[in-house]
């Protein structure tokens, strides 16, 4: 008898279906039991388990905590602030995605239904609104004796929103308003009970006097009121390309490099701080310590530093604005009095993101970031490192000096720089330039160490003649280059490895003679 026959097929099918039915029944019972167990644990009743991730961190400064009733406890204030920001976060999220998720957690029963109505209305009319608030200045007015009710006035909330209808951007609106808020403590959450939008109040001007070392006058950068021409270099330690503050951070290595730079008649270095590496919105203290060590060394060797922020970062959506603002605020306010810093470079080559990340988004993000940095550090200059001279005119009224990166044909350097200077009336810095010494199969033997030396020799004559501020790329050749920098292909990578004035073995290349003028 054949093994495969109708009878056996039926038998197998029968057995298999029995097993399948059993499996599904078991799964079903499991699900039911699982469902019946939800909410059974006491911790879930008190919402003690809600561990919050940093998703929304606009600037919050409590201007006043004195109130006629109960004294505000620090712990309660932290919880209140967290829940209040969450109430904004869920509201923003509701308006952006037309969903009611989370609203019930941060608005009381009577209040939440007002939000639901808007969500329904906007859903029906295909309206979505991306929102973020940038600043809150809450002022406590009342905290009840039993600690269950609080009233405060959130002064001058800056709301920034992008309005879409039928998926098409209608407009971008920035609005400032004050809000009177009443919140109740309900099963572990502070929930909004009443909200009232009010007119904004006049801003109180900060009376702190800046005391800068580096200033700008017409198209000159000044140091202690004397003209200062940046003769600089982009710097990564030899073995830590794109990872200055990583595991291999070494004070001695940097001190030696600073001696080399100083002896080569340079006065400025440019460094990079990576957003993720430094801990995003909440900065890792050990990274800050390393940055301080670095800056202190530079100060000791009398070198100025341009610190480039937000390297390897390209999320410009409103959702992440507040997080990036806290990142910048943390770094910039910590070092606002550091004498080694010449300028903050807001972002390296942001125009490369114009195409993929929407130019409007990128520029809006940059513009708000200039405000954040200026507010937190009035002492240092501010620039943006554009990747070419054409885009460098963007936001030129927001920065102290214009930086652009010159990788075009050497003969154009004077033309491009002079044109930029004329159009902006601000100092212009050629913040990156250079060619690789790599000549090999991947670039058809295009360059060589000699060609590199010739290039630098020639370009330095232009710089000297015009007294341009310059920063070359870069001090060292790198044995390793991360993929994010130039790309993953060898013809991209090999070029990038050989831009240095000093090769991997630590021997000066011929171009080193022309590192400065």
């Amino acid at each position, binding site marked *: 008898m054949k093994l495969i026959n109708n009878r056996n097929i039926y038998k197998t099918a029968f057995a298999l279906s029995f097993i399948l039915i059993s499996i599904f029944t078991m799964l079903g019972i499991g699900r039911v039991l699982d469902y019946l167990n939800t909410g059974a644990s006491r911790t879930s009743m008190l919402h003690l388990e809600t561990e919050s991730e940093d998703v929304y961190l606009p600037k919050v400064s409590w201007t006043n905590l004195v109130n006629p*009733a109960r004294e505000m406890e620090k712990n309660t204030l932290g919880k209140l602030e967290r829940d209040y920001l969450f109430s904004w976060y869920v509201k923003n999220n509701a*308006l952006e995605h037309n969903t009611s998720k989370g609203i019930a957690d941060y608005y009381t029963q*009577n*209040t939440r239904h*007002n*939000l639901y*109505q*808007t*969500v329904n*209305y*906007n859903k029906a*009319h295909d*309206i979505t*609104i991306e*929102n973020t608030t940038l600043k809150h200045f809450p002022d406590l*007015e*009342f905290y*009840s*004796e*039993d600690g*269950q*009710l609080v*009233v405060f*006035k959130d002064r001058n909330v800056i*709301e920034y*929103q992008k*309005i879409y*209808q039928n998926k098409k*951007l*209608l*407009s971008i*609106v920035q*609005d400032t*308003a004050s*809000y*009177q808020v*009443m919140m*109740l403590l309900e099963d572990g959450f502070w929930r909004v009970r*009443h*909200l*009232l*939008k*009010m*007119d904004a109040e006049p801003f109180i001007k900060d009376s702190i006097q800046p005391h800068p070392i580096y200033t700008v006058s017409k198209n000159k950068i000044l140091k202690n009121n004397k003209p200062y021409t940046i003769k600089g270099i982009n710097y990564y330690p030899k073995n830590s390309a794109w990872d200055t503050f990583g595991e291999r951070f070494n004070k001695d290595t940097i001190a030696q490099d600073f001696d080399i730079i100083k002896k080569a008649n340079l006065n400025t270095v440019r460094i990079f701080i990576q957003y993720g590496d430094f801990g995003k919105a909440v900065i890792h203290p050990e990274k800050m310590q390393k940055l301080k060590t670095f800056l202190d060394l530079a100060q000791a060797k009398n070198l100025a530093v341009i610190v480039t922020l937000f390297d390897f970062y390209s999320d410009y959506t409103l959702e992440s604005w507040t997080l990036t603002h806290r990142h910048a605020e943390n770094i910039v306010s910590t070092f606002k009095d550091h004498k080694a810093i010449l300028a903050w470079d807001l972002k390296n080559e942001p125009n490369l993101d114009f195409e993929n990340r929407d130019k409007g988004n990128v520029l809006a993000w940059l513009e708000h970031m200039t405000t954040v940095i200026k507010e937190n550090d009035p002492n240092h200059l501010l620039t943006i490192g554009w990747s070419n001279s054409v885009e460098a005119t963007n936001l030129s009224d927001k920065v102290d000096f214009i930086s652009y990166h010159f990788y075009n044909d050497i003969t154009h350097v004077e033309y491009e720089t002079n044109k930029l200077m004329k159009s902006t009336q601000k100092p212009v810095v050629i913040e990156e330039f250079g060619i690789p010494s790599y000549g090999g199969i991947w670039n058809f033997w295009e360059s060589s160490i000699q060609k590199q030396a010739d290039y630098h020799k020639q370009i330095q004559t232009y710089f000297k003649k015009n007294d341009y501020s310059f920063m070359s790329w870069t001090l060292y050749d790198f044995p390793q280059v991360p993929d994010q920098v130039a790309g993953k292909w060898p013809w991209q990578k090999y070029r990038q490895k050989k831009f240095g004035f000093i090769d991997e073995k630590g021997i000066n290349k011929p171009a080193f003679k022309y590192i400065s003028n």
Partner: protein
Amino acid sequence: MIKKSLHIVFPILLVFLFAFAAAKINNQADSFILQSKQQRFIAGKPITLSFSSTSKTANPKLFLIHTYGKTVLDSQNNNGQITFKIPAMYCLKTGVLSWYLIQDETKITNGSFTILPNDNTVTKIENYLGPPSLLTGTDHFTMMVAIPTDKFDNPKQDGTEVLIKDQFLNDITVTQKTTKSFIAWKNIYSRTKSGKMLLSTECNNTDSKEFETEVKPSIGEDFTIDFSRNHSFADGNQITSLTTSIIKDRYGNLVGDGTLVTFQVVTNENVLLKTYASTINGVAIGQLLHPDHQDTFKVKAYITGIAQSKTISIPYLPLIKNFKYTFTEKNRRITVGPVRSFMKQLVPDGVKVELKIFRNEELLETKIVETNKGIATFILLAPFYPEKEYQFEITTLGITQKTDTKQYEVN
């Protein structure tokens, strides 16, 4: 041919050029002027914003920022008259409503108006009272917070009058408060008497429900204790009751029932004994077993951390002066008793009798037996006590008697 086509194309081109130029000029010249100048609206009333425009076709949009939401409105252009109807949900809620007029992705003009609570509707009042119970005294208080709103749950404007009322015994107080930042509030201070306090609020003839707060007695003051007992003999059987005076707080209110009182006893041998009792109607009654030997108990009572009494002394008299014992069955059975009490009655069953067995002044063993009908019996079995002679010490009810050296037969 070419000329002919030029003749045709050129006028068409001209027309197009003109049309576009006109359209362009027209576009630039589009101006919108807000016509509804009203700055204040009352919640619940419909609101329309109207603009006059030079364009009869333009359909700008209006972006609204309201307390509880943001949205975009489409316009109706009626011969240069552009109107926006504010959705009902936004007309109901108070606050500043900011608007931005948007055309072709640009903000043309913006402004705002205020919606005020509707005082013509029924007032609703929401109250929060806390803490829910108080202690007597002048520095404790409960806080009544009232939030009067209109029918649409909009908090009333600052300065709205609210009456906050409280009743305690014959004392009824009505205070007028005005709202500020949504709320009117008052601290209602406790009284020196304990009891129930009733509270309520009123605004625009709307009354709240009745709220209740309990004024509980404060912590007790120091008190005295006393004792009572059936007799003063240390019989190890009777119970001495320890009674506190009526414990009151400093305003004369009985402390709450169930206040725990600890009675601490120190005996003559400095042994510490404790007994506990909870108060009922201010009095706690502790119980203490009489000792089985003459002793003096020094008793002090505490409400831990709060109040205490003075120490009292309770003497216990010995129950017996001596007792009889006999050795029988070749000294192997020792019968103690009958032990007689203060009226010659047999002592209650269970009185402890202790027998210490010595040999050559060395303690071998201590046996304990309780009396039954006044008699306690010890049996010294030969296999366990093989020696020739033993001495004994017998103790009961605090009396110790030493026997002679007894001789035993050795097999």
